[in-house]
C-alpha cells in the first residue's frame, strides 16, 4: 500500500468525524432509556476499570518483586505440606471483594431494569414495525381504523410522548436498534415483541438492524425523527392523506409508467390502484430523507439510479432492475416527486 493511499485513508478516517449524521451511538444517549442505560454503563465502567487496575497492579507487582530463577533452580516443594496463611489472606479478600462488587453491579442492573420498564405509557403513540428482508415496514396504529397509515424506514414520533412499538417479522429474525434512544429488541417471526421508548428532545436518530438477516443485513438502516408535538401532528395528518392525483401530463405519464411496470406489483400508493404490500409503501415517498432503508439519500439522481438497478447499490435486494427509457424514467420521477 503506497504512502499516498495510506494518507488518504487516514484523511478519510479523520474526516468522518466532521460529517454530521443522525446519532446512532450508545455513548450519545438522547432517549430516556438510553440515558438510564448510559448511567449504568458509567458506573459499570468505573467499577470494572478499578478492578482491572487493581488486579493488574497486583500482578505486575508480584512479577516485578519476585526473585528470578532458571530451569535448574531448586523448586520450593516444601509448600506442598504447609498451609501458607500469608497467601491465603489476600486471596480470600480478593474473592470476597469481587463477590461484593459483583452484587453491587447486579443490583445496579436490576435497578436500571426497573427504570427502563417503568415508562409511563399514557397517550402513547402505537406503531407496528415489521421486519422484512432488508427494509422496515411501519404502520401507525389507531383506535380509529381510518386514521391508521403505513410508511417505511422512517419513523416520526412526538418528542416528550411515549412510543410503543409492536415488533413482528415477515421473514427471518431482525433486530430494531436505535442506540441513542434505547437498547435493541429482536423481531422474531411467529412472535410479537414490544419496545417502549421516549425521547424528550427533538432530533433525528439513526438505527440499524442488529441481527444478521442475510445478504444485505449491513444495509438495513432506519431513521427515527422526533418532532415537537405540533410538528408531529402535522406530519401524521399529511401521512394520512392519500397521494395527490397527478396534475401535469408528465406526472400522469409517470403514474402510468408506475402502474404498467413491475413497480405496482410490490409497492402500494394510497389513492391509486397500486395496493401490493411486498415492498415499502410509497404513498409519501418524497417526504423521506433516505431511500433503500437508509442506504441512499432521497435525491432525484439516486432515486432514478436505484430504480433502474437496485442491485448496483444493494446486491441481493428483492427489488429487480427496471429498465426504463429515459423519457419514461423522467416521467416517473416527476410523478414520484409529488408524493410528499
Amino acid at each position, binding site marked *: 500500500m503506497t504512502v499516498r493511499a495510506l494518507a488518504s485513508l487516514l484523511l478519510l478516517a479523520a474526516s*468522518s468525524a466532521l460529517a454530521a449524521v443522525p446519532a446512532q451511538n450508545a455513548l450519545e444517549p438522547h432517549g430516556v432509556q438510553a440515558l438510564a442505560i448510559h448511567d449504568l454503563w458509567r458506573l459499570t465502567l468505573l467499577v470494572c476499570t478499578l478492578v482491572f487496575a487493581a488486579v493488574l497492579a497486583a500482578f505486575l507487582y508480584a512479577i516485578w518483586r519476585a526473585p528470578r530463577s532458571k530451569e535448574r533452580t531448586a523448586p520450593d516443594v516444601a509448600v506442598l505440606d504447609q498451609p501458607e496463611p500469608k497467601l491465603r489472606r489476600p486471596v480470600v479478600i480478593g474473592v470476597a471483594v469481587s463477590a461484593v462488587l459483583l452484587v453491587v453491579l447486579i443490583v445496579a442492573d436490576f435497578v436500571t*431494569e426497573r427504570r427502563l420498564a417503568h415508562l409511563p405509557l399514557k397517550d402513547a403513540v402505537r406503531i407496528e414495525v415489521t421486519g422484512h428482508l432488508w427494509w422496515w415496514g411501519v404502520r401507525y396504529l389507531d383506535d380509529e381504523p381510518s386514521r391508521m397509515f403505513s410508511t417505511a424506514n422512517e419513523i416520526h414520533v412526538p418528542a416528550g410522548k411515549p412510543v410503543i412499538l409492536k415488533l413482528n417479522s415477515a421473514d427471518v429474525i431482525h433486530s430494531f436498534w436505535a442506540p441513542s434512544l434505547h437498547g435493541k429488541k429482536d423481531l422474531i417471526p411467529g412472535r410479537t415483541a414490544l419496545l417502549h421508548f421516549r425521547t424528550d428532545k427533538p432530533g433525528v436518530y439513526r438505527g440499524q438492524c*442488529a441481527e*444478521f438477516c442475510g445478504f444485505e443485513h*449491513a444495509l438495513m438502516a432506519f431513521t427515527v425523527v422526533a418532532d415537537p408535538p405540533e410538528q408531529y401532528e402535522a406530519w401524521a395528518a399529511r401521512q394520512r392523506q392519500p397521494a395527490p392525483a397527478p396534475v401535469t401530463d408528465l406526472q400522469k405519464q409517470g403514474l402510468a409508467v408506475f402502474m404498467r411496470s413491475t413497480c405496482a406489483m410490490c409497492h402500494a400508493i394510497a389513492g391509486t390502484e397500486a395496493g401490493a404490500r411486498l415492498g415499502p409503501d410509497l404513498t409519501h415517498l418524497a417526504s423521506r430523507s433516505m431511500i433503500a432503508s437508509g442506504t441512499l439519500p432521497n435525491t432525484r439522481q439516486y432515486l432514478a439510479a436505484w430504480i433502474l438497478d437496485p442491485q448496483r447499490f444493494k446486491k*441481493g435486494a428483492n427489488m429487480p432492475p427496471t429498465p426504463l427509457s429515459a423519457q419514461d424514467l423522467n416521467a416517473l420521477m416527476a410523478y414520484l416527486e409529488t408524493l410528499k
Partner: protein
Amino acid sequence: MSADANNPVLDRSWSDPPGLIGWLSAINHKTISIRFMLTTMGFFAAGGVLAMIIRLQLARPENKLVGPDFYNQLFTMHGTTMMFLFAVPVMQAVATYLVPLMIGSRGIAFPRMNAFAYWIFLFGGLMLYIAFILDIGPDAGWFAYPPLAGPEYSPGKRMDFWAQLITYTELSGLLEAVILITTIFKMRTPGMTLNRMPLFVWTMLVTSFMVMFAMPSVMLASTALITDRLVGTHFYNPAEGGDVLLWQHLFWFFGHPEVYLIFIPPLGFMSSIIATFARRPIYGYPVMVLAVIATAFLAFSLWVHHMFATNVPELGKSFFTAASAMIAIPTAAQIFCWIATLWAGRLNFRTPMLFALSFFFILTIGGLTGIMLASVSLDLQVHDTFFVVAHLHYVLIGGAVFPLFGAFYYWFPKFTGRLMSERLGKWNFWLMFVGFNVAFFPMHIAGLRGMPRRVYTYPAEMGWNLLNLVSSIGAAILAVGILLFVINVLVSRRRGEVAGADPWGAGTLEWATASPPAPGNFAQPVVVASRFPLWSPGGVAGVVRGLADDRREVLVTSVLDAVPNHRAMMPESSIWPFVSAVAVTVLFVGSIFTPWAVVWGAVLATPPLIVWFWPKRKATQMNLEREVKP
C-alpha cells in the same frame, strides 16, 4: 529412576506398523494426537486467513473488496472453523498426548476409538472446506439461526453442510470425552490419588464431563435443522407449531458451555506452566479444583444471556444476569491463586511463561467486559455489535489461544526432542500481544458507537473509519506474529537445541519420559507419592513390576486412590477405524442429499464396525495363554 531407559521390546510392542497401511492403521495415542494437533492448527490458520480477508474488507468504509454473499460466507466459515474445527478439538488433541504421560500410563483408553474420532474430525472439516471451495459453503453464520438458516431462506445445500459438520465434530468430541474420562479415572499410575493429579488432568476431566452434557444439545438442534430442511419437519417453523427460539435455546444450551470447553483446558495449561516457571506448586490446589468444577456447573446456567434481546420473560432474564455475573467468582479465585503463586515463586521468563502471563492482562479485560454483558440493560445496547466481537476474542484468545501457544512452546520439546527458539519466541509473543490488542480493543468502542456485527460494510459518515482501520492493522500484526510461530516450529524441528527429558526442570510425570517419549511411554511405570513426583524427595516411591513388555499391557487402577486392580490388553494397530470413518462419512454426506442415505449408509458402515470389534484368533490365543481370571 529408569522411567526413560531404553526398552526395545516395549518399543516394538507399542509401535505402529510402517508403510501406508501402517500409517492408516496407527493407533498410538501420541501419533494420533500429533496428527490431530497439526490438523486443528491447520484449521486455525485457515480460519485466520478468512479473518484477514474480513479485516481487509472492513479496513475502509464502503469497501468493494468482497461482496455481501462472499463476506457472509467468510464470517460463517471463520466462526465455524474456529469454534468447531479448532478451539475444542485442539484441547482434546493436546490432552490425548499429555494425559497418559502425566498420569504415568503407557497408553490411552479405547485407542482405536481415539483414531476413529480423529478421522471423523478430519473428514468433517474436509467436507466443509470442499463445500466452501466449490461455492456451496454455509453463509448463515456459525450459529445458523432459523428461519434464515431454514429451508425457506437458505435454499440449496449450504446450510446442510454446516449442519452435518456439527454431527461430525460433535461425534468426534463426544468420543474423545469418553476416552479421556475413562483414561483419567482408570489408568492412573499407582499412588496417584485424585488429589495428586496434575491440575491440567483435572481440567480435562471436568471439560470431558461438560462435553457429554453440552454436545448432545447442538447435535439434536442441528439434526432437527437438517430434518426441517430435508424432509419437512417443523421444529423451527412457527406456522406449524414450531418455534424459532427453540433453536436458540438448544444451540445456546450447548453454546455457552462450549466456550467453557474452550476456556477450561487452558486453565490447566496455565497451572502447568506457572508451576514450572515459578519453581513451586500452584497455591491453593483444592480451590483450583473446586473452582473449575464450579465453573463447569455454572456454565450450564447461563445460556439465555445470548437471548436477552428476544422476548423471553423478563424475570427469567434477571436470573441469567445473576448467574452470568456469579461465574466470574471461581475464575477470580483462580486468578488470585495464580498471582499468589507468582508472588511467592521465583520466576523464569521464558517464552511459555510470557504467553501464560499475558492471560492476566487479556483475559481479565475479557472477563470484565463479560460482566458488562451480563447486565440485561447494557447487553441490550451492545449485543450483536462489535463490542461482543471484542469481548469474545479477548476471552477466547486471551483465555485460550495465548495459553495454548504457551503450551506449545512448553511441550514442544517433549513432542519433538528439541526446544523452540527463544529469540523467535519472544518476537512471536510480543507481535501477537501488541497485534491482538491493537486489533481488538478498538472494537469495544466501535460497538458502543453503534457498529453492529456481521456487516460487510459501513457508511463513511458513521465515525467508525479510524477504529476499523486500526483494527485491521492490528490484525495484520497479529498475523505476522502467528506466522513467526509457524516459522519457529519449522526451524526448531530441525535445528532446535536438543532438549533431553526435562529441559524446564518441571515436576510432573510427563517429564520423566524421553523426548519424544518411547512408543510405550514408560519403560518402567512408577509408583508416585506426591503431586510433583519429580520434585518431591520420595515423590517416586517405587516402580511397577510385572507388566508385560512384549504385549500392549496396561495397568488399570481404582478411581479414587489408583490402587492397582487388573491388567488390560490394549488392541493392536488396526485399519478399521479409518475404514469405518470413511463409511460413516459416506453416510453423513449422503444424508445431506437424500434421507435414504441414512439407511444404505448405515448398511455400509456396519460391516467395518463389526470387523473392527471382531477378535483376531492369534491375539485371542496369546491372551488366553496369559489369562488370569478375576
